[in-house]
């Protein structure tokens, strides 16, 4: 059997007396679609920050494929195939989507530090960026400044930027946050249509979406893993009902 | 051997206290609004010129000090309400440009009204004498300066720690959005703090004339020292500003006495190294 695409063991992180991650061990098989759920403050975004290197764990290890990446800088992890999106749009307001995604492609190809050749000369990178944008249905607006884009289009651009890094593992932090429900569905269709080579972990509050698009679900509470299982196992789990489903659903 | 060292230490300490008065207001307002106010030195200069003008009219030195405080505070809040608040959300660069523009104008205005020569200050006779202790001369004026600065520090720390307004200021420095959410009127709190801070700078300016003189370039000469105190001490920290000001005052006096060839080199070097070690200053958060 091949190694899992992403694995963490014993991840621990605390700020002073506040423990935000405690003994977190997850393992995502190649090509899996995992959902990460839990009430607000459960440490879901913190876990993504730990995996991507935005935060340093106090202890524990992170493996991408068979390589330990715990000590790597965030940008080096991206180069090895670990990409993420942000819950709150983290884009380049004054660049056009085409420019932004082309830049991400150039970064992956290792040519973004070239200052003596024109960007237009990198035709393959531009074509690839345009194809990514078109595949997410934002090809028509890719020449405008990003800040002029509709909110939902900006959410798609978040994903486009991550895809441009050709990830093996993609971590999506509430990709549909703030998007009306129907558009959110379209957004998840786009995610479901991603190549099966890409392993996906997404944070989402809408349980219908979770059960429809995730093959397995991880539940976090208070910085710890509560339970992991298939959609139906999670739906039937009494503990999950208590801490999560019992409460009001988030839109 | 000992006597000069004590003298240098004393002068440096007095100078540090002066720098503290000049910079503490900037530190608190910068910590609260992240507003880089390079015109802070101009408010100190306003205080200094108010004191000189009133003494010219025959006022006693002591009576001019509260006026220096008041006028600098009132003028500053006028600018805060009309001009500065427009750029709180703008970039660092925009804030630097606007306030340095104002500083330039204040220099020109001072030259227009008062000319470019040094202004005289007429101290009461008893402030111009020395107290001798263990064979060392201590300037009465510097003792007075230290006493004023210590009193101000005590008042500030007390007000911040024990009054309702102080609590609001601390909350706003700590987390502006949170404070707003808790019903603190950050806008008004900031305006008052700004006036107080600039008033203290005005007071410092009036007290500084005897030590460092006064001409229209006062704004820029002291701006760099004030910025060093704020950056090294850490934004929004009164303790940090006090420590940094004393450190700077003593090193400046000691440097001038023991290694005059190095000039200000040593101070800049210490500042750059300190900021590399702790980019948010000695007592800075983040």
């Amino acid at each position, binding site marked *: 059997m091949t190694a899992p695409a992403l694995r963490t063991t014993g991840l621990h992180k605390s700020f002073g007396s506040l423990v935000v991650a405690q003994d977190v061990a997850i393992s995502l098989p190649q090509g899996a679609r995992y959902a990460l759920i839990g009430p607000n403050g459960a440490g879901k975004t913190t876990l993504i920050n730990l995996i991507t290197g935005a935060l340093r764990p106090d202890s524990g290890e992170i493996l991408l494929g068979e390589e330990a990446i715990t000590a790597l800088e965030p940008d080096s992890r991206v180069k090895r195939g670990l990409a993420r999106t942000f819950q709150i749009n983290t884009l380049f307001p004054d660049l056009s989507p085409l420019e932004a995604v082309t830049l991400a492609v150039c970064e992956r190809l290792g040519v973004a*530090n070239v200052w003596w050749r024109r960007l237009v000369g990198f035709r393959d990178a531009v074509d690839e960026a345009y194809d990514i944008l078109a595949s997410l249905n934002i090809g028509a607006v890719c020449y405008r400044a990003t800040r002029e884009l509709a909110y939902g289009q900006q959410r798609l651009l978040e994903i486009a930027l991550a895809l441009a890094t050709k990830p093996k593992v993609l971590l999506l932090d509430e990709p549909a946050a703030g998007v009306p429900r129907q558009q959110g569905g379209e957004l998840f269709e786009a995610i479901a249509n991603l190549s099966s080579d890409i392993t996906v972990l997404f944070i989402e509050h809408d349980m219908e979406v979770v059960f429809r698009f995730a093959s397995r679900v991880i539940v976090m509470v208070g910085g710890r893993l509560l339970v992991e299982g298939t959609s139906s196992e999670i739906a039937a789990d009494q503990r999950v009902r208590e801490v999560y489903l019992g409460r009001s659903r988030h839109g | 051997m000992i006597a000069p060292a004590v003298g240098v230490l004393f002068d440096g300490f007095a100078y540090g206290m002066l720098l503290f008065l000049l910079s503490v207001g900037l530190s608190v307002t910068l910590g609260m609004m992240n507003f880089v106010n390079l015109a802070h030195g101009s408010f100190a200069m306003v205080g200094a010129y108010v004191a000189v003008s009133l003494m010219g009219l025959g006022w006693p030195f002591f009576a001019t000090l509260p006026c220096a405080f008041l006028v600098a505070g009132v003028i500053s809040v006028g600018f805060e309400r009309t001009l500065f608040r427009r750029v709180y959300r703008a970039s660092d660069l925009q804030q630097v440009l606007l306030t340095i523009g104002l500083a330039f104008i204040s220099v020109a205005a001072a030259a227009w009204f008062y000319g470019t020569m040094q202004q005289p200050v007429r101290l009461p006779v008893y402030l111009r004498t020395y107290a001798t202790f263990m064979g060392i001369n201590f300037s009465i004026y510097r003792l007075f300066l230290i006493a004023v600065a210590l009193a101000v520090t005590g008042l500030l720390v007390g007000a911040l720690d024990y009054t309702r307004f102080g609590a609001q200021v601390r909350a706003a420095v700590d987390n502006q959005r949170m404070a707003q959410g808790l019903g603190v009127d950050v806008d008004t709190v900031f305006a008052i703090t700004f006036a107080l801070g600039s008033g203290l700078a005005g007071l410092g300016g009036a007290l500084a004339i005897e030590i460092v003189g006064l001409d229209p370039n006062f704004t820029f000469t002291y701006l760099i020292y004030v910025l060093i105190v704020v950056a090294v001490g850490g934004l929004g920290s009164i303790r940090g500003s006090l420590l940094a000001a004393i450190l700077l005052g003593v090193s400046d006096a000691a440097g001038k006495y023991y290694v005059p060839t190095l000039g200000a080199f040593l101070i800049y070097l210490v500042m750059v190294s300190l900021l*590399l070690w702790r980019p948010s200053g000695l007592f800075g958060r983040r």
Partner: protein
Amino acid sequence: MAGVADPHQYLAAKQRWAPIEVAFWLAMLLPFVLVPTYLPLASQIAITAIFAVSLDLILGYAGLVSLGHAAYFGLGAYTAGLIAKAGWGEPFSGLLIGGAAAGLFGHLTGYIVVRVRHLALIMITLGIGLLLYEVANRASWLTGGNDGLQGVAMWPLFGSFDFDLYGYTAYAYSLAVLFAVVLAARRLVHSPFGLSLRAIRENERRMPAIGAPSRARLRTIYTIAATIAGIGGALLAQTTQFVSLGALSFERSAELIVILVIGGTGRLYGGVVGAIVYMVARDRLSGMNPQYWYFWIGLMLIGVVLFLPNGILGGLATLLPRRSRAS
């Protein structure tokens, strides 16, 4: 929305030479025939423009505010001046050595500068500038201290053009270097690297998430900008055959920011236009007491921040219809 369907056309249009650019460079030749008595001023303008373009690369494109950029300008000036004084008066190699010295210092200080932001960045760049000023001031045996570096004797340019009293050679030389610098900066701005700088300015937090090492990028541009500033300084030393401490001063750094901001940051020609407007205005008003010159600078700064945040070129751009909108 038709007309720009192809991504290659869209990107190519962004970096195409505009007719007004060509006209601009032709106009820069006019001083030779129209106002030959002002050629020394024209050289000063070209040199200041080089310096302003170098600051624009870090401030306008990458978003790093520096209050100490004169350090690199002055270092280039003293290096070129000292080489000439020591007996090697060949201008072009002196120019390159001056640029290299400043670039090396920029590379070393770059490691410090890119680590900090906000007030700490302002203070560290300011501190580096003040430090170098103090060093030059104290080392008067080498630099001449307050009297300035004198006895800078230049050989003819390329062995055949003497630096004449009227400034023909000086302006031709300065203008050629300015043109080369703008060409290089133009290439850089439209390269993938230039794009990544704009992205850092727009949102540095996102950069690691697309696999970009933004600190390394900032170090590179800081080194490049320092090199260009050094070339500008070297040019000043060679054309005026003198270097004063003022080349390293805080006033020089502050003035440069004013120039760039008046012209417009983050636009290739902002620094050039700013240099022309500022230097001509200062020349016209040179009879004025310097204190009042400061008054006008102050007023201009406040006006620019409140009413013209993108400088003269930004203001013009909003007035003129945008070509790319035509369909």
